[in-house]
């Protein structure tokens, strides 16, 4: 039997661009990030179709937040590529909005709710652009969408956890992007906030925008999302919730950490 040589580069050693036939909102190839000698995520690939709502699901320390941060260039990757609408991150920056974990900032910062939302417009304003009434109106409209407009003049230190989360979402709305990346938006929020957030995300989806959430509540995955990416350092499974969010895949993702009874409670299609 003759062996066909496997070809990994062009004859002259040039690097061949990966096939980017698609201009999907988010395409990740071979993304690896390490904080020390142990990778936080290893060689993750994913392609998120336009207009989908995808949950990134996995156990604690699985690299869910790291994946988002690596996509956004907040943490440096060791290898791999990220393309956003077929472009590099810096080219497509204006089309991406980000909602960090709310615990990642000091809420005793001297600023008001409306000022936080206006931060979503800073990039467009540039260094010397004047903040006009038009911008303030935009910011108020974003607060309106998350049901927080009556808090516009409040100091952020006075907000509850759910209200903080909604302000962060309003700031991302102000960025007026096409791809929204959210890090645990439903963590520790009250029921009213959870509903307000999911309503906003669904309205984004209805405008054909793409939403990717790091999500920890397995019970709501099927209700809220249409796609799922299961990771535990490496990608375990990816696809529509109906076919990929299965008991078998969950068991592979969480290992022994997820009790079988818990999986039964989710009433998943047999895997």
């Amino acid at each position, binding site marked *: 039997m003759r062996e066909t040589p496997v070809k990994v580069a062009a004859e002259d050693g040039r690097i061949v661009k990966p096939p980017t036939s698609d201009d999907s909102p988010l395409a990740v190839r071979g993304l690896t990030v390490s904080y020390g000698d142990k990778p936080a995520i290893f060689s993750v690939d994913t392609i998120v179709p336009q207009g989908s709502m995808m949950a990134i699901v996995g156990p604690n320390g699985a690299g869910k937040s790291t994946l988002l*941060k690596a996509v*956004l*260039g*907040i943490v440096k990757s060791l290898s791999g590529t990220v393309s956003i609408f077929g472009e590099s991150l*810096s080219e497509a*920056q*204006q089309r*991406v*909005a*980000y909602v*960090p974990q709310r615990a*990642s*900032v*000091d809420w005793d*910062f*001297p*600023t*008001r709710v409306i*000022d*936080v939302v206006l*931060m*979503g417009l*800073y*990039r467009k*304003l540039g*260094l*010397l652009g004047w903040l006009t009434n038009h911008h303030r109106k935009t910011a108020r409209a974003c607060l309106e969408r998350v049901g927080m407009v009556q808090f516009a003049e409040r*100091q952020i*230190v006075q907000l*509850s956890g759910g209200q903080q989360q909604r302000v962060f979402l309003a*700031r991302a709305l102000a*960025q007026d992007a096409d791809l929204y*990346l959210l890090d645990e938006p439903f963590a520790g929020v*009250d*029921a*009213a906030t959870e509903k307000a957030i999911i309503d906003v995300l669904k309205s984004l989806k209805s405008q054909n925008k793409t939403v990717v959430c790091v999500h920890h509540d397995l019970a709501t995955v099927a209700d809220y999302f249409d796609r799922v990416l299961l990771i535990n350092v490496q990608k375990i499974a990816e696809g529509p919730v109906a076919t990929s969010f299965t008991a078998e895949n969950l068991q592979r993702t969480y290992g022994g950490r997820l009790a079988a009874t818990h999986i039964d409670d989710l009433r998943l299609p047999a895997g």
Partner: protein
Amino acid sequence: MWTTFLDALLLQAGYNAALVAVGAALLGIAAGTSGTFLVLRKRALVSDAIAHATLPGIGLAFICMTALGGDGRNLAGLMLGSALTAAAGLLLVAWISRATRLSEDAAIGAVLSVFFGFGIVLLTLIQTMSSGRQAGLDGLLLGSTAGMLFQDGIIIAIGGALAVGAVFALRRPMTLVAFDADFAKASGWNVGHVDLAIMGLVLGVAVIGLKTAGLILIVAMLIIPAVAARFWTERTEHVVLGAGLFGGLSGYVGAALSASAPALPTGPVIVLVCAFLFVLSLLFAPIRGVLASLLRHRRFQVRVHRRQGLLALAHSEAVHDRMTLAVLRRDDLIRADGVATDIGRAQAAKALLDERRWEIVRQMQFAEGLKANFDGLTPIEGVLTKDELAEVDRRLGPLSIVGG
């Protein structure tokens, strides 16, 4: 001395003193505004490293300028030298904390002392090398404005104005990075560059302030105005403005004070004025100040005791708490012998009614957003509309008549 101080304040104490006062005010404004972002970024300590790392630069610049046959005390030359070593110190701190597992404060501690030690060695060398001519250099440690030249004043004024202009131009990215660096990065700002700009501004101000405040005490002018201003406001712009005001004021008044007593070094006096403003803010600022929060806490405690006392009255329970009794007595809700007055009985009935109303509200649909008010202390009339209250009373049934 009092009249000399007044003269100095009014810029009447001679040309030189006026120049110093105006220069110090400008320096204070620049230091206060640019230091604010360092404080908000929670990296106030970096300014200490920068300030101490200027010393070897001063020594080296003096040696170079003398070796080239110039005047070793030329302020512009000394500033350039100090800026270079301060930048080197800053880069070293950044490199150590990035490349090793050392935390930034450890890196700052190491760099600060080594650079300062090296600077002192250089100054001592200069002293033995050429006696007499180095007189001006000691003054740069604590600030000495005696014999400040007009051109020195101009340098300080221009430098200060440039720093204030840079703060204005960079206020948005600096605010964003200080509040939420991850979001700043994700929305396309180069966080590394913005941090560099914050440090660069602080470095610039430290260098400008060598002559007036001295390289050790300039740290106080960078940090104290910002933390003092923070007591008065909850908005970044106002913290920046307040810090500029406090910094400018302490520079101006401090320089005037030191001009009225020639033996006083400028730096320490400015810092003391600045510290005085800080203590005033800490104690008397309306919301975040210590006295205000003590008062607020006390008032809240009285409300709690009053409420508990009224509910005890309504249930005809004995009150054992000394403070509760004192509050009830003070408000004429009970008599000296512990029996409830008419007002006391009426208010107790109202308290009980409101308690039952809250219980109903808790079960009702619209209560979702009202959770924060379920403390029994917020008056229910301020939370519910008249219609909602009527609905609550309807559900409460005949009990609601008790209140009258």
